[in-house]
C-alpha cells in the first residue's frame, strides 16, 4: 500500500535521508525506530508529502506523492497522521476538531460529521469531553482526540510520528491501547516510536534507521531475536537494558 523507493532528502548540503527503501502492505503494522536524529520523523512526513524529498519515489495506493500533478490534499485526506505534539486546534472544541476536515474536505453534512465524531470519541473513551477545548484535556486525552480526528476521515492507512514521546509516563498506555486496538482491527500503520513493548505486541516488521539510512528492515521476530547489524544490536542493548 505504501511503497518507499530510494528516497533521499537534503537540507541544503546536509543529507538527512539516504536511499531509503521500504514498504507497508495492506493491514501491516511497521514500526520505525532508531536513535534521535536518524531521520525517522522526516521519512514518515515524506509519506504524505508534509516534507518534500529530492530523490526517489513514494507511492500510496499507487499514487505518487512526489509527482507534480498529484492532488496532495486529496491524497492526504485518506492518510491519517498523528503528531508528537498532538497539534489539536486550540481555538476549536474537541468536536469541532473532529468535524472540520470531514465537512470541508469530505463534504459531509455537519450532522453526519458530528455523528461520526461522537462515535469515535466514544471509541477512544472521551465521549464526555466533546464540548471541551483541547487545552482543558490532559496530554493523553489530547492524543486520543488526535487519533480520533485522523480516524474520522476513514483513512486507508495511519502514520504515527512519535505519538507518545511528549506524554507523561502514566499517560502513555492509554494512547498505546488505542493504537493496539487499531492494529488488531487490521489498520495499515506506520509508527515511529521508541516503545519497543508496542513493537513486540503488534508490529509485523521493524525498520531500524540510523544517520538517515535504513539499516535494518526485518520481521519483528528476527529484529528482536537476532538483529544482523551491529548498530541495531547496540541500539537495542541501550534501550532494552532497563
Amino acid at each position, binding site marked *: 500500500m505504501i511503497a518507499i523507493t530510494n528516497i533521499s532528502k537534503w537540507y541544503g548540503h546536509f543529507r538527512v535521508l539516504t536511499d531509503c527503501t521500504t514498504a507497508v502492505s495492506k493491514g501491516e503494522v511497521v514500526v520505525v525506530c532508531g536513535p534521535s536524529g536518524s531521520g525517522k520523523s522526516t521519512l514518515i*512526513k515524506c509519506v*504524505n508529502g*508534509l516534507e518534500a524529498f529530492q530523490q526517489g519515489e513514494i507511492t500510496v495506493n499507487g499514487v505518487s506523492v512526489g509527482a507534480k500533478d498529484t492532488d*496532495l*490534499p*486529496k*491524497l*492526504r*485526506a*485518506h*492518510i*491519517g*497522521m498523528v*503528531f508528537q*505534539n498532538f*497539534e*489539536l*486546534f*486550540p*481555538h476549536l472544541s474537541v468536536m469541532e476538531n473532529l468535524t*472540520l*476536515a470531514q465537512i*470541508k*474536505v*469530505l463534504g459531509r453534512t455537519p450532522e453526519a460529521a458530528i455523528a461520526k465524531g461522537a462515535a469515535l470519541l466514544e471509541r477512544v473513551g472521551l465521549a464526555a469531553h466533546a464540548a471541551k477545548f483541547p*487545552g482543558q484535556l490532559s496530554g493523553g486525552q489530547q492524543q486520543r482526540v488526535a487519533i480520533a*480526528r*485522523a480516524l474520522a*476521515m476513514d483513512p486507508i492507512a495511519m502514520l504515527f510520528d512519535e505519538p507518545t514521546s511528549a506524554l507523561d509516563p502514566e499517560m502513555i498506555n492509554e494512547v498505546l491501547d488505542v493504537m493496539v486496538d487499531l492494529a488488531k482491527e487490521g489498520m495499515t500503520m506506520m509508527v515511529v516510536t521508541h516503545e519497543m513493548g508496542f513493537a513486540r505486541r503488534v508490529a509485523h516488521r521493524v525498520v531500524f534507521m540510523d544517520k538517515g539510512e535504513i539499516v535494518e528492515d526485518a520481521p519483528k521476530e528476527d529484529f528482536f531475536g537476532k538483529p544482523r547489524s551491529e548498530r541495531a544490536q547496540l541500539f537495542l542493548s541501550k534501550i532494552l537494558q532497563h
Partner: protein
Amino acid sequence: MDLDFEIIGRALPYLAGGLQYTFQLTLVAATGGVIFGTLLALARLSSFKPLALAAAGYVNLMRSIPLLLVIFWFYFLVPVLLQSITGAERPPQIGAERSAYITFVMFEAAFFCEIMRAGIQSIARGQAGAGYALGLNYWQVMWQIVLPQAFRNMLPILLTQSIILFQDVSLVSLLNVTDFVGAAVKVAQRDSRVVEMYLFVAVVYFVLCFSLSAAVKQLQRKIAIVR
C-alpha cells in the same frame, strides 16, 4: 484671559458630526487595513518570491513615508496620475473625503500587515502541518486554523494600532475635511475661540483614547488567562 466655554455647547451638534466622521473613517480604515494587511502578510510569507518581494516593497515604502505625505499624495497626485492613464480631459474628482478613506486603508494596511505577519509566525508550523495532513488546502488551513489563532493572539496589538489610527485620522483636517479636529478648527476660526476649542478637543481625545487603552489592557489580561 477671558474664556467662554459656552461656545462649545452651541457648536456641539457640529462637533458631533465631525466626531462621527472620525469614528467612521477609523472603523473603515481599521477593517479595510486588517483585511488588506492580512493579504499582504500572506503575500510576504509566500514561498513565491516575486509576490513576497512586491508585498515587502509596498509595506516598506508605506512605512518609510510620513502619513501626511501619503495623504497629500493620494489627494493631489493620484487624480493627475489617473488622468494621464485614462487620457481624460480633466483630473477625475475623487473628493477629499473619499480620498481619505482610500489613503488610510492603504497606509494602515502596511502596519496591520506587520502585526498579522508576526501573528501568523507565532502559530507553530505544526498547526498548519496538521491541517494539511487532514487534506485541507492552503486557504482552508489559513482561514480555519492559522488566521483565527493569529488574529486572536494579535487582537490587543491590532486594537492599540487602531487607537493610534483614531488619532492619526485628525490629519485629514488639512484637506479641509470636517473630521472632529477639522470641525473644531472651523468653529475656532469662525468664533475666534481657539483656546477653548482646542482644549475641548484635547480633553475628548484624551478621555476616549485613555479609556479605550484601559479596555484593551483588560482584554489582554482576559486573553492571557484563557490561553
